[in-house]
């Protein structure tokens, strides 16, 4: 009992000696903290340094973050250094200290040496203007320093010399996040639908408090701060337990526990195997994770790790053979589990009844719902999302090699489920057929939730502050022909109502039908509830207060009848399509006739302007068809006025060089206009 209690009672005599002997650590610490925290204020003047204080308050000062891990590492290393030599460890364990007292004293000494300079710096900062704002960053710094002091004490318990202490400290600091990333790498390579997004990405950051506190400031989740706080006594207990079992005779060895020697060898071997495999994949010498690199990396790193562990080059013995064999078995088991999906990860689709909400994130959401993330909470929609999930699992084209067909579109997207008992995320980069028979997508596209998301009159979007209309077709800037229109604020209401009506009534079949876009609309909204940390020029000031802007771009297809009618009624349609009257000629070529290079195509020259104008309506919509190699490319030349708008391509018409801009239209091989174009070609 007394022995156990000694783990919480430092020796005042030894604490005093430690602070006396290692005074250099807090002294260097003070210098570092001074130059990172106080010197900038002295250099710039204390007045008007709110930004500096805010940076510190939000834990965005990289030096402060670095010191929070660096000084605990140094302080723990020097106070525990006596364990790394036979003479000093014998001497210390002869003196009237229990191991518990030695451990506790070392921890307290390290913490004091790390924290003292930080405390002085934060005190000065709070006195010279930071005030109460410095309280939270100081508390977080204390938390980080105690966390890493406890962690590095574990490293000192596991190792027998300073070099390995450094290495193992690094491994421990990055272990959990690194493990998540490694699992992610192998999962992504071997499991269909695996994602590092969502839960995995979240944990990769959260498992390293330094990253979490630096990257997620100031929106910390109390539960994670509580986890870090609780981790300190847990790690302290682990360190103390290791000390009580540590064999002092292993001072100077690489490791003090045989089991950790094995673990270290496995970690280094696995890391080497993974890194070399990735390097070989990057050099196109085989696919990750199984290629020559993985074998070479594993073998090399295994031997190196064994040599480091044993502090000897003579490692070719039975024990090495046994350990190598064990490693192979573990890796084989892991790869088999992933390759054959023994856990059923790929096939797992949550029961719609268990799903509270689900988000579609990525290109699928962007293409269908004009937002990078859309959330569904209605049971019917959740059921359609799980049906989509099942479709991805059962119809995984890239894996079953069923081939890509016309109408397919490559989508990178994730489904993030919030379940009753946690979270579940899957992510794919695969082809989806945009067809009317796709009931799930049709239902989701036409759902009330999706339409509400697309509602451009939603007050949450902000106040419309500017609407411009432009011609479509990418490179074809309206500036060239003066066709760009900026609506008067008086017209916002009518125009947005017409547009919203079209958006809300658009059917799935209309959406996926091949069509060109007629007009581009850009709506700027002012949002008057800006985040306090935003800096100019992201927000500005107006009579209504400070605001920031968001922009929404919408392509108007031909079936947006209400919008087009409004444009015609207001005389804008003709103006926006006026550029079509400036078409001079076009060139047509078949991509399928050449391999890769444009100069290999046989080009047809078309001068029938009316025919070219008809062809403009035969291009596909913004849902990109994948098999471009089978398409014909129509390159349309449109005259521009270069007097006002700078340099342009020049083409000769009737002996005169005319400035032009180019519009490219991709025509599928079955487009009826294609035959007419070919027939009219010169």
């Amino acid at each position, binding site marked *: 009992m007394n022995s156990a209690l000694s783990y919480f009672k430092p020796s*005042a005599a030894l604490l005093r000696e430690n602070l006396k002997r290692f005074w250099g650590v807090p002294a260097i610490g003070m210098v570092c903290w001074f130059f990172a925290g106080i010197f900038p204020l002295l250099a710039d003047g204390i007045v008007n340094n709110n930004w500096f204080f805010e940076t510190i308050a939000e834990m965005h000062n990289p030096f402060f973050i670095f010191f929070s891990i660096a000084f605990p590492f140094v302080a723990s290393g020097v106070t525990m250094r006596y364990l790394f030599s036979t*003479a*000093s460890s*014998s001497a210390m*364990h*002869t003196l*009237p200290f229990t191991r518990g007292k030695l451990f506790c004293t070392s921890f307290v000494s390290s913490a004091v040496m790390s924290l003292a300079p930080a405390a002085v710096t934060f005190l000065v900062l709070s006195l010279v203007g930071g005030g109460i704002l410095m309280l939270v960053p100081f508390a977080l710094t204390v938390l980080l320093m105690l966390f890493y002091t406890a962690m590095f004490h574990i490293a000192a318990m596991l190792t027998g010399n300073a070099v390995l202490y450094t290495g193992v400290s690094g491994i421990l600091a990055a272990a959990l996040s690194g493990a998540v990333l490694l699992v992610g790498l192998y999962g992504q390579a071997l499991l269909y639908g695996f994602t590092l997004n969502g839960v995995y990405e979240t944990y990769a950051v959260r498992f390293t408090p330094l990253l979490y506190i630096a990257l997620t400031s100031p929106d910390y989740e109390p539960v994670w701060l509580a986890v870090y706080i609780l981790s300190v006594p847990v790690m302290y207990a682990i360190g103390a337990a290791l000390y009580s079992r540590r064999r*002092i005779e292993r001072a100077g060895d690489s490791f003090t526990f045989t089991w950790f020697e094995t673990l270290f060898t496995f970690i280094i071997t696995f890391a080497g195997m993974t890194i070399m495999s990735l390097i070989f994949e990057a050099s196109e010498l085989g696919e990750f994770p199984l290629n020559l690199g993985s074998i070479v990396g594993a073998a090399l790193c295994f031997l190196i790790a064994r040599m480091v562990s044993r502090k000897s080059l003579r490692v070719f013995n039975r024990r090495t053979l046994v350990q190598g064999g064990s490693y192979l078995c573990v890796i084989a088991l892991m790869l088999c589990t992933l390759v054959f999906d023994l856990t059923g990860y790929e096939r797992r689709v949550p029961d719609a009844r268990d799903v509270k909400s689900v988000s579609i994130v990525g290109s699928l959401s962007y293409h269908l719902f004009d937002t990078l993330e859309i959330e569904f909470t209605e049971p019917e929609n959740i059921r359609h999302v799980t049906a989509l999930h099942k479709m991805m699992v059962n119809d995984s084209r890239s894996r079953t090699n069923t081939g890509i067909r016309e109408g397919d579109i490559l989508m990178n997207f994730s489904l993030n489920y919030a379940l009753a008992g946690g979270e579940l995320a899957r992510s794919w980069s695969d082809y989806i057929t945009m067809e009317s028979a796709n009931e799930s997508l049709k239902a989701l596209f036409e759902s009330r939730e999706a339409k509400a998301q697309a509602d451009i009159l939603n007050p949450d979007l902000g106040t419309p502050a500017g609407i411009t209309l432009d011609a479509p077709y990418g490179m074809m800037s309206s500036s060239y022909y003066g066709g760009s229109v900026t609506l008067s604020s008086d017209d916002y209401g009518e125009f947005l109502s017409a547009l919203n009506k079209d958006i809300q009534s658009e059917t799935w079949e209309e959406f996926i039908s091949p069509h060109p876009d007629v007009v581009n609309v850009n709506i700027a909204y002012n949002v008057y509830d800006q985040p306090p940390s935003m800096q100019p020029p992201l927000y500005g000031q107006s009579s209504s207060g400070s605001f920031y802007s968001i922009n929404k771009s919408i392509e108007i297809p031909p079936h947006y009848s209400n919008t087009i009618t409004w444009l015609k009624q207001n005389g804008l349609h003709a103006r926006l399509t006026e550029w079509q009257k400036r078409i001079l000629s076009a060139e047509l070529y078949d991509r399928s006739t050449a391999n890769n290079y444009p100069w290999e195509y046989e080009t047809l020259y078309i001068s029938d302007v009316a025919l070219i104008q008809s062809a403009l309506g035969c291009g596909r919509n913004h849902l990109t068809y994948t098999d471009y190699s089978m398409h014909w490319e129509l390159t349309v030349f449109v005259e521009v006025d270069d007097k006002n708008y700078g340099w342009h391509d020049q083409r000769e018409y009737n002996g005169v060089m005319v400035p032009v801009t180019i519009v490219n239209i991709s025509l599928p091989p079955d487009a009826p206009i294609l035959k007419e174009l070919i027939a009219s070609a010169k």
Partner: protein
Amino acid sequence: MIDITSLTKQFDKTPALDGLELHVKKGSIYGLIGVNGSGKTTALKIVTGILRPDIGEARMDGEPVYDNLSLKARMGFIPDELFFFGSYSLTECASFYKRLFPGWNAERFAEMKERFALPERRRVTRFSKGMQKQAAFMLTMSAMPDFLILDEPIDGLDPLVRKLVWKYIVDDVAARSMTVLVSSHNLREMEGICDSIGILHRGKMLIERDLDELKSDLHKVQVAFPEGSGSGADNAAAAVERYNGLELLHRETRGTVELLIIRAPEDIVRSVIGAQNPLIFDLLPLSLEEIFMYELGGEHSELGAIIF
């Protein structure tokens, strides 16, 4: 009192101690003898609680030593390989020890400082090996330990300092009943100092004896008989008859003179040999080396290699 029972310790599956038994009486000086690698230092490190044994236990005054704070406060250990805080002078070391050891005796330290005449303000780590040993001895002895454990204590010390060191130890044993366990690879060094001797060989205790008891039963006798009385190298059978009743451990003839090692009480030796009317009959002093050699089976025993 120090008791070690059934102590077994392995380093990476290499046995260092194998069922070691060791018993040191309170207020006595125990010499632990053995060649390099016999396990002396390991045994001492277990006695001082530095190492934890695989099997067995070390106790002092009946209490287990390992992680025992109160015992450590009563114990002083001077290892063969010394360690001092890097930048500390002797005075700084002393003030550290003063805070650690409840029995610290400042007067003793002041007195020893004068006797040993070591520089007070120089870093101890800059001292020569011998000076460091003296410094360690001063610090340890000033802590007034009840148990003093010494690993090869006089290596590197000049004869005058050795004498001084032993004087302090013997005085404390006499005055305070301090219990001393001292290791050495040289039996001669231990002669005249130790009350008990244990000989360690390959991790096992070959023999553990109280020296007074040993010396009282083992005798080296130089004897010569008149010519024609059957003495000499050629008459071993007659010798067996002549020394009947005595345990003859060794017999050597040099001309007409016989050199005998006999295990028996002195009065019996005198009466048996005296009854033969020898021309010369001397009881010679027996060195510690000879005692152990004959105790363990004669000069051809492998012990010769261990203790000399």
